[in-house]
């Protein structure tokens, strides 16, 4: 018997009991929709969290905190940097040292207090550093400043220069000139006890690109290694730190870096680099590792949600079992006639299995459509309700529910398996119908 003819049989049979079939399809659709919507919460929240994490960090960046030696972690030295640069697929290794006191900077009558950072610009450029204006430093006393540094320069006055609402320097007290080409004076302290200071003139040659994230601001002044060392020599402490006695420090200290970041050639290479660094006893952190953990957690959560959703489908399958059993009983005389004239038991079984699959497919299609609509409503409505209830603004782009194709495939697959299984026994019963009893209408 051809599939097309089997399908025609099913349509004829379903037509005979439209209401019952409709209710069964409805139950299946509800079960399927419930499964998808439930699991979609897991998918939605995972997407939102992953997106948020990815946006906050550069995905190819790996932070290297130190190297394990014995039970301690030691700061990275130039030797480590060279080793890191040799690792396969590493694009750049950037290293920074932050001055361990906050210098003040003055230009004309304006003053600012921000951090000074010494960095190795060739590596930074390789890692993707870009300027919004000017050029990179070429001489020891040349510096580049962060994009928001100029906003920190405020008029040196007794008046209240800060806006009470925003906490920023008021417009009228801000430095309004172009810093590129100007000389600013960096003032550092020798120690905490004395008022002894040193003024170092620095020429601003460039301004860094604005940070990509809205909430980030870059106020730093990027000084050369030479200036950094001048400050260290002046204070006699590592990083120009004040508040410690230079005499108590060990004399054999090796030059190390506060902040080391490794940049991979591409996203796919990150995990390999992290693993290799781990094998070499480096303590690392990368967004990819974090993603791995987040994804593992959400995979477990999603599997749990799908399992709970499947229970709804199993409940719906009881309806299918009931419908198919009724159908077999009602059609017993017809089945008897068909068997008498030569219908193979396998054909009879196939017809009934196809009928339960048909209910499953239609239910799954309707369920998927309903799930998509519900998901859309949840994403629009829930943030509004939560905002009203808690009077708190939800993060932009927060998704409570997301239905990827994989979820639809999983749900439809489960739906089909459950419906076919529930149609199995009635279908088998149909093949066992006694021809003579059926033809005598005794079933």
């Amino acid at each position, binding site marked *: *018997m051809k599939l097309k*003819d089997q399908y025609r049989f099913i349509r004829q049979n379903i037509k005979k009991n439209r209401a019952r079939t409709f209710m069964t399809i409805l139950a299946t659709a509800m079960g399927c929709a419930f499964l998808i919507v439930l699991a979609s919460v897991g998918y939605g929240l995972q997407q939102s969290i992953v997106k948020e994490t990815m946006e906050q960090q550069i995905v190819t960046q790996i932070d290297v905190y130190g190297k394990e030696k014995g039970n301690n972690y030691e700061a990275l030295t130039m030797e480590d940097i060279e080793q890191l640069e040799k690792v396969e697929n590493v694009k750049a290794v950037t290293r920074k040292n932050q001055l361990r006191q906050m210098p003040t900077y003055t230009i004309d009558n304006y003053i600012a207090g921000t951090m000074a950072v010494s960095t190795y610009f060739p590596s930074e450029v390789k890692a993707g550093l870009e300027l919004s204006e000017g050029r990179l430093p070429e001489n020891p006393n040349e510096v580049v400043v962060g994009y928001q540094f100029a906003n920190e320069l405020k008029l040196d006055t007794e008046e209240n220069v800060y806006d009470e609402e925003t906490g920023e320097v008021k417009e009228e007290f801000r430095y309004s000139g172009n810093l590129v080409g100007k000389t600013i004076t960096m003032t550092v302290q020798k120690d905490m006890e004395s008022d002894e200071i040193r003024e170092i003139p620095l020429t601003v040659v460039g301004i860094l690109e604005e940070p990509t994230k809205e909430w980030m601001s870059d106020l730093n002044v990027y000084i050369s290694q030479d200036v950094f060392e001048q400050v260290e020599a002046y204070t006699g402490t590592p990083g120009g730190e004040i508040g410690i006695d230079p005499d108590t420090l060990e004399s054999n200290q090796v030059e190390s870096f506060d902040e080391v970041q490794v940049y991979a050639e591409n996203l796919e290479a990150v995990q390999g680099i992290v693993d290799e660094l781990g094998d070499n006893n480096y303590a690392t952190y990368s967004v990819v590792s974090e993603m791995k953990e987040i994804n593992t957690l959400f995979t477990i959560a999603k599997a749990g949600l799908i399992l709970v959703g499947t229970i709804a489908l199993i409940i719906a399958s009881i309806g299918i079992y009931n419908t198919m059993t009724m159908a077999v009983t009602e059609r017993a005389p*017809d089945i008897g*006639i*068909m068997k008498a004239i*030569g219908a193979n038991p396998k054909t009879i079984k196939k017809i009934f299995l196809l009928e339960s699959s048909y209910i499953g497919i239609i239910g799954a299609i309707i369920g998927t459509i309903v799930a998509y609509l519900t998901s859309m409503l949840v994403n629009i409505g829930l943030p509004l309700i939560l905002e009203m209830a808690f009077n708190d603004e939800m993060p932009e782009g927060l998704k409570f529910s997301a239905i990827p194709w994989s979820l639809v495939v999983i749900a439809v697959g489960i739906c089909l398996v459950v419906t076919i299984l529930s149609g199995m026994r009635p279908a088998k019963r149909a093949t066992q119908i006694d021809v003579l009893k059926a033809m005598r209408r005794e079933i």
Partner: protein
Amino acid sequence: MITVKQISHHFELGKKGQKTILPVLNDITFQVDKGEIVSIVGKSGSGKSTLLNLISGFIRPTKGEIRIKEEVVTDFSEAKFADFRLNHIGFIFQSFQLIPSMTAYQNIELPLILKGENETNRKQIVDRLLDKVGLVDFKDHYPSELSGGQQQRVSIARALVLEPALILADEPTGSLDSETETEVLEIIKTLNKELGITFLIITHDEEVARIGHRTITIKDGSLMEGGVVQ
């Protein structure tokens, strides 16, 4: 065509442990040749319908062997017997056994669908048979909209649709009036003559039995002595 060899059959009645054996057929042996019309006659409860059911494969004999077209059908599995019925045997039942939710056309078409015949061929064959049994104008009628005679003609057309070599008829005129009975018997005779189809007819009606080339009489589950009448 059919060889029935020492067939015996009994039914088991009652619950397990308290079963009663009810013998129905006892050591039946006969043969039906190709192109014959053989009538099996006997009173109600004589076992003639059971014999037909055994030959049809609807029930299995307790003892003995049945061969149809040289094949030992009593050894067949249920599925194999179903395929064998579809390809080699046509059925005409007393109560027509048409599917009520299908039209006359669809009922006749059913064996062709089961065989996997394509739609164009099906239409051609069914239209020809509808014409042969004089039901062209009733092809879209459901069984409930047809008279007894018309329903039996649909049943005959369905039995013929796969051109079987053998047709088993169980009281084919049992539900018909005498005029329609004559009509149906004429069709059977014509089919036998023109197409050489072998008929095995179960009947208690002597009038019907007379169309057979031979008559086999069964009494109390056994062939009557000298029961085969030429």
